[in-house]
């Protein structure tokens, strides 16, 4: 099993979710994060003073998939979330030792 962590632009979430659903991914966990990277933040002004907001809103998607689905899932996310403009984000793949479905005590790929 692998854990895929994708940092994407927020308005791409729906498309990515649909793309993953299409290839049979049935579960994922999403959170709001702030990203710092090549895409520069924007300048805001408040009461006469400028300041830079370095951290931009991003969405992090985490999903654990069977080894064999990994590449397909990464490809699906890449395709669905690409705009070609700076700040599109990253996908990281991490090894997973084990998984449990709390409701049933199933473990391993059964649990996903």
């Amino acid at each position, binding site marked *: 099993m692998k854990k895929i962590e994708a940092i994407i632009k*927020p*308005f791409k979430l729906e498309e990515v979710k649909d793309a993953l659903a299409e290839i049979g991914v049935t579960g994922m966990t999403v959170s*709001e994060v702030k990203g710092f990277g090549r895409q520069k933040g*924007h300048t*805001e*002004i*408040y009461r006469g003073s400028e300041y830079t907001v370095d951290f931009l*809103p991003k*969405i992090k998607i985490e999903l654990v998939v069977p080894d064999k689905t990994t590449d397909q899932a990464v490809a699906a996310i890449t395709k669905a979330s690409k705009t070609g403009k700076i700040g599109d984000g990253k996908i990281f793949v991490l090894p997973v030792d084990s998984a449990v479905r709390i409701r049933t005590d199933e473990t391993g790929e059964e649990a996903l």
Partner: protein
Amino acid sequence: MKRLIRYALIGAFALAPFALQVASAADPAAEAASAVTAVIEAAAPAEAPAFTDLEGFAGSPGYATFTANNIWMMLSAGLVFIMHLGFASVESGLTRSKNTVNILFKNTLIPCIGLLTYAICGFNLMYPGGDFAGKWFGFAGFGVSVGADPASQVANLTSAYNAGYTYWTDFLFQGMFAATAATIVSGAVAERVKLGTFLIFSTIFVAVCYPITGMWKWGGGWLQALDTPFYDFAGSTLVHSVGGWGALAGVIVLGPRLGKFVGGRVKPIPGHSMPLAVIGVFLLWLGWFGFNGGSVLSADPALTSLTLMTTCLAAAAGGVGAAVTSWILLKKPDLSMALNGILAGLVGITAGADQMSAMSASLIGLIAGVIVVVSVIFFDKIKIDDPVGAISVHLVCGIWGTLAVGIFGNLAGTAQIISQLKGIVSIGVFTFAFALVLFLVLNAVMGLRVSPEEETEGLDLGEHGMEAYPDFTTVSPH
């Protein structure tokens, strides 16, 4: 360059009072007195001893009644003023947090601009004086003033001006009214309209368009001069429908928000703060005490108390009507619909608030509450994207309320219905055309809609470089 023009235009309104000419001492608004003057006049009997200065008036027998009347009208101005906070709250509550600063900015500036333009020209366009009775257009010159000499002050600051209020009270009350029409538009075009363009639209709309049609009726113009005069007590048509037509024109030119209609389906875009929306609606209801109550144009006890009673019962029935309708149609009771229902009831009763019984008022409000729910769903169906329901509340229920004057109450009758239709249609055509052309011209000249990127990111960052709630973690844009 464009930017420069924008500054110049906006700046001009603030500076223009310098150029004000002293308005003629002749009373431009007194002629607008409505059908209810009989009682008021009695209160300041014709045989009142003439007075030549303010001190003399203060010692005269009519002074106490005039003072009481003027208090009521000044408070009504204050209550109408607080409606602007009501609009700001409702509109920001029913839209997304990423556009909140933008909406608040618009709703903060509109009353400011509205008051200033009304001082410059609006008041004198709307109440041009008796010379223009029965006409389509009139103008009494730029600026507002009571004149410097004692005689003109007596003429303007005593019951010689009007049994119910002084010249200044008149101006202030009417000025607060005026800006509401522009504010109505702001809710409907929210979340995608360019700030600068919208402010220019609003300025012209409130300075020129609203006073012209207002003059047709309240300024003693042709609608007032009909055999069976068009009747619009406090502005179901003259204020609310006018705002609603402007809103409709704006929405048509702008198109819907990104993501509202996707693949032929309606995707709701929930507002970000229900408490704000509730605060706004209650403040609007409160403001209507002055909006309708002040439209009696005096504190006449019988008429003002009748008006407040009909106003409140209609609001209550509108709220119940919309809540029940949404509960039945949509399975769950929708708070935003109940809120719209209260406003619908208020808009609905506005045209005939002084002509109805408790029963008729409740019924008018109840029907308005049902209409508004159906109307909101209908406009979504035909892909008119109005984030706060302004068109349903102000245009549709404004029409309903104006018609209701011919159906219920003291004035009911076929002739009245026909006059009401004349008013509805003529004012509708003029206002819609005016607003449409203005929006199209502004769209061509400086652009009406922000870029899709800005719309996605939110107008707060795009137009203002600010966030409304920088401390809070907000969810990703829908």
